[in-house]
């Protein structure tokens, strides 16, 4: 499913250029421990986290993640935004919790898989 469709359905607010929203999302991973994400997130996954520090962008780059969704209404640090733009990693925001965001996304992706 395209990141753009997910962003619309979940009302995520993109902070990075809209071209990034064209990419495909393969699934998602929820985590706030960076080494756990490094170990367990899958290629093309959307990463749902409350971390805002610049190191999240490096994790997303090394793991080939499709995007980062920052939850709980948190704002990324300004150097996180600079790096996200230069490394071409979409960052989107939501006021919802990780639980709600992941739950909704799980439903959407599951429904899509059932449709084939």
């Amino acid at each position: 499913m395209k990141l753009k469709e997910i962003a619309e359905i979940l009302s995520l607010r993109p902070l990075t250029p809209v071209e990034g929203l064209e990419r495909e999302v393969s699934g998602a991973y929820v985590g706030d421990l960076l080494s756990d994400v490094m170990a367990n997130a899958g290629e093309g996954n959307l990463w749902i986290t409350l971390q805002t520090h610049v190191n999240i962008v490096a994790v997303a780059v090394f793991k080939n993640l499709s995007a980062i969704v920052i939850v709980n209404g948190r704002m990324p640090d300004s150097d996180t935004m600079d790096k996200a733009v230069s490394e071409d990693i979409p960052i989107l925001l939501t006021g919802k919790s990780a639980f709600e965001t992941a739950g909704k996304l799980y439903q959407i992706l599951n429904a899509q898989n059932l449709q084939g």
Partner: protein
Amino acid sequence: MKIDKTYEGNFHIVGGDFSRAGEASTELKTILLNVGIEDEIVRRVAIATFEAEMNIMIYATAGILRYIISPEEIRIIAEDMGPGIEDIELAMQEGYSTAPDWVREMGWGAGMGLPNMKKNADIFRIDSVVGEGTTVEMIIKL
């Protein structure tokens, strides 16, 4: 693609400025791609190197990351002159961490970095002397 010769180099890693964390690993990733190493191997090297780079930044404040790319393998040596590790077996256990609070706030300190390095390398060695420093060597076969 076959690698026809040996490429070597090193990066100096300095702690303190966490916004620069990952720069050495990013540069190495670019070098590997330019040399023609396949994506899956580049990914493994990048993850292992990034974890090693972070540990140097967090625990040792300064060190050197060396790489040797030969037709047979990629060898990464992360060497620091930090405090060293008292109990290596304990440090290798998933979940063990002495990361201070300010590092945990950034999301590090799961105690998974060394296990991640080991998982992504074909051969993993760690050697440490308290008060002198730590050396991690990783080999990824091509």
